[in-house]
């Protein structure tokens, strides 16, 4: 009878742990969208994985600012880890005085999924404001001044991931890998007077005291932090997890060399532009003036082709596009994201 489980494919299963939990589907799509070093999604749970952060002036109301974070690659379709993590805190952070330390924050906590498949949540802003309560899949609108929603949406990201991994952007075969995939998202709209002038914003996920993932600008971790296509595994140790757990206020100290290394591949060693660009890219926050409706590098709107912008910057004009543009039907009104597929 002991033989019963000799051919239980212990190998295939353990291997699957290698491929699944360790480097499985989630890591293919993992965050920013590839920031964990192929071991597990940050924190081992794809719900803690931040895909993208957006910050823009509301197209429906120029007095309003909009912050969006998308999480959980493919909305957990591959990992089975659906929705938002009930023990995590999802945070928007803002630096208003230019020192890359958070001066303002908004924190969202979710309850476990209930029998109807929804999660109740509470959003709390620093200061004396009240908790805002909601349920996933529904819009919260407080007198038209503050709006919140959380749930499953079409993933707004567009990128030719296949070509990126091949380090070969061929316009004739380019396609948006993220078409048809969903994501979780939190959309938070508020009077922009709360964050006036030029501010730096970013998002992070916390489990207790531990920061699991964080993101400001698109693709910083993916492109600059080893290991990546420029500094593949084996060339030097990975710092992806360190980056995910890091704080913008320490980015120059901790990661300046990595960004410089990558930029020098294209600009040449000693080129002063490298230093200038590095100082733009680090600390990893989205700098935005909500008083302007302009897009990236002023914040990030949903349809902004950040990949093209960053490709041109990083490669010194050698590559200027991944030949993929937005194919999602965004809305000009809250919550702006396209509905889930």
């Amino acid at each position, binding site marked *: 009878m002991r033989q019963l489980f000799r051919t239980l494919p212990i190998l295939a299963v353990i291997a699957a742990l290698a491929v699944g939990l*360790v480097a499985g589907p989630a890591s293919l799509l993992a965050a920013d969208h590839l920031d964990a070093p192929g071991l597990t999604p940050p924190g081992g749970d794809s719900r803690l994985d931040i895909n993208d952060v957006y910050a823009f002036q509301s197209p429906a109301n120029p007095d309003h600012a909009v912050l969006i974070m998308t999480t959980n690659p493919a909305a957990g379709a591959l990992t089975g880890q*659906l929705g938002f993590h009930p023990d995590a805190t999802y945070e928007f952070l803002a630096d208003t005085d230019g020192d890359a330390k958070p001066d303002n924050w908004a924190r969202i906590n979710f309850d476990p999924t209930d029998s109807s498949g929804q999660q109740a949540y509470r959003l709390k802003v620093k200061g004396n404001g009240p908790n805002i309560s909601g349920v996933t899949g529904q819009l919260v609108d407080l007198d038209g001044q503050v709006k919140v929603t959380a749930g499953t949406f079409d993933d707004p990201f567009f990128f030719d991931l296949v070509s990126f991994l091949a380090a070969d952007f061929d316009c004739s075969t380019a396609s948006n890998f993220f078409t048809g995939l969903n994501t979780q998202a939190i959309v938070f709209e508020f009077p922009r007077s709360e964050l006036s002038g030029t501010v730096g914003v970013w998002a992070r996920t916390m489990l207790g005291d531990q920061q699991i993932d964080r993101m400001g600008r698109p693709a910083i971790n993916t492109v600059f932090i080893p290991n990546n296509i420029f500094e593949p595994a084996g060339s030097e140790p990975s710092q992806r997890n360190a980056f995910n757990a890091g704080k913008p206020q320490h980015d120059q100290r901790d990661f300046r060399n990595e960004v410089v290394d990558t930029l020098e591949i294209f600009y040449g060693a000693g080129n002063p532009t490298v230093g200038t660009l590095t100082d733009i890219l680090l600390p990893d926050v989205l700098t935005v003036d909500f008083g302007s409706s302009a897009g990236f590098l002023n914040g990030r709107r949903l349809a902004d082709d950040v990949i093209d912008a960053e490709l041109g910057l990083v490669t010194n004009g050698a590559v200027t596009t991944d030949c993929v543009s937005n194919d999602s039907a965004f809305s000009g009104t809250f919550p702006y994201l396209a509905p889930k597929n």
Partner: protein
Amino acid sequence: MTLRKILVVALLGVVALVGPGLLPARLGGTYPSGDRPVPDTVAALALFQSRVERDANAINLTVLAQLYARRSRETGNVEELASAETAVRAALAQKPNYGPAMLTLASVLAGQHRFDEALTTAHRAQQLDPRLGALGLVGDVLVATGDYEGAREAYSHLAGTPGSPGLAARMAHLYELEGDLEKAIRQTERAAAAGLDQGAVGEEAAWFQVRLGDLNFTVGKFGESDRRYRAALELLPGYWPALAGRGKVSTARGDFDRAVQFYELAAAVVPRPEVMVALGDIYSINGELRRARDSYATVEIISQLSPGVYDRNLALYEADHGDPEAALALAESGLEERRDVYGYDTLAWAFYRLARYGDARRAMDRALSLGTRDPQLLFHSGAIWLALGDNRSAITDLEAALELNPHFHPRYAEEAREMLALARSFD
């Protein structure tokens, strides 16, 4: 009748026995329980099949392959691995240096028991991308083929992976093979808890519970064993090894009716040889000979449908119920690729059935060389000693088997008791 017709008849025969209320309500469906949902692999497969139709790029194909592989583990159906292999080879045709695809291929080959190919492929994956932990799979294949030192060496390179449940489970398996069952259980408990902490769901989470079910069964802790199998079923309803595990526990407790129910549920998911032999054994004991025969017949059919995957099961089946010469041939050819503890055990038992006790002893000694404490091994060893006239050694091994688990098998535990009485009377 063609093989396929026989299979259909056999399956219908089995499924017809399953009453309406016995099947889990939503086999493989998705329904959240608290924050531990069951992954909907079928839906994910559909999503990625349509993505591949739209754009058969290397990533979509690799993810599709991984989903087929996951489905195969969930359902026990090894044929899904063939679909996985097709998809991932197509991915590699486009991107020959894509590490995740290479590792996926290696794990698919291992699942199909193509161990030599799996090993080469896993090494290539490791070279392509050391982040992926391909050395873990390398180690697993080496364990399967009996190179335990090589496995340790491969696993040692993974030691830096913090808190990895996968690594802990691998070490637990080595402890188990070396006979330290208590340590294996503790380590697996830790691995299971860490996995759940890290959000493991579905089959990945359920698998750890099944390992604990198995380990506890080995040491005769039926209550804990059954609790673990039930926990596995909560994590993945219809998970066939957990259903079979509950059948095994029911058998050990003497509740044959319940055992049949569980085994039939497992067989309805997938009529794997382990399950069909167990069913056949219980039917035999109950005197339901026609059903026993049908169940046993399925073993040969299934084994032929997936050549190589079930040879070990088939060899033991032939030794116990069929043609010992066939058992020997299967055991010997199996040893060519897998010179592990259970490969030698299978060979030893085939020799035993052919009354070649000297050869049996030599093979059994190889099987026991790590010190594995498994009632099946100890029973086989005791029987061989008895046949050789070494009553003392027979008593030692038979007592050890029954002390671990006095109900390790519905038939052979009793045989072990009879042999023990005999050995004592001679001594």
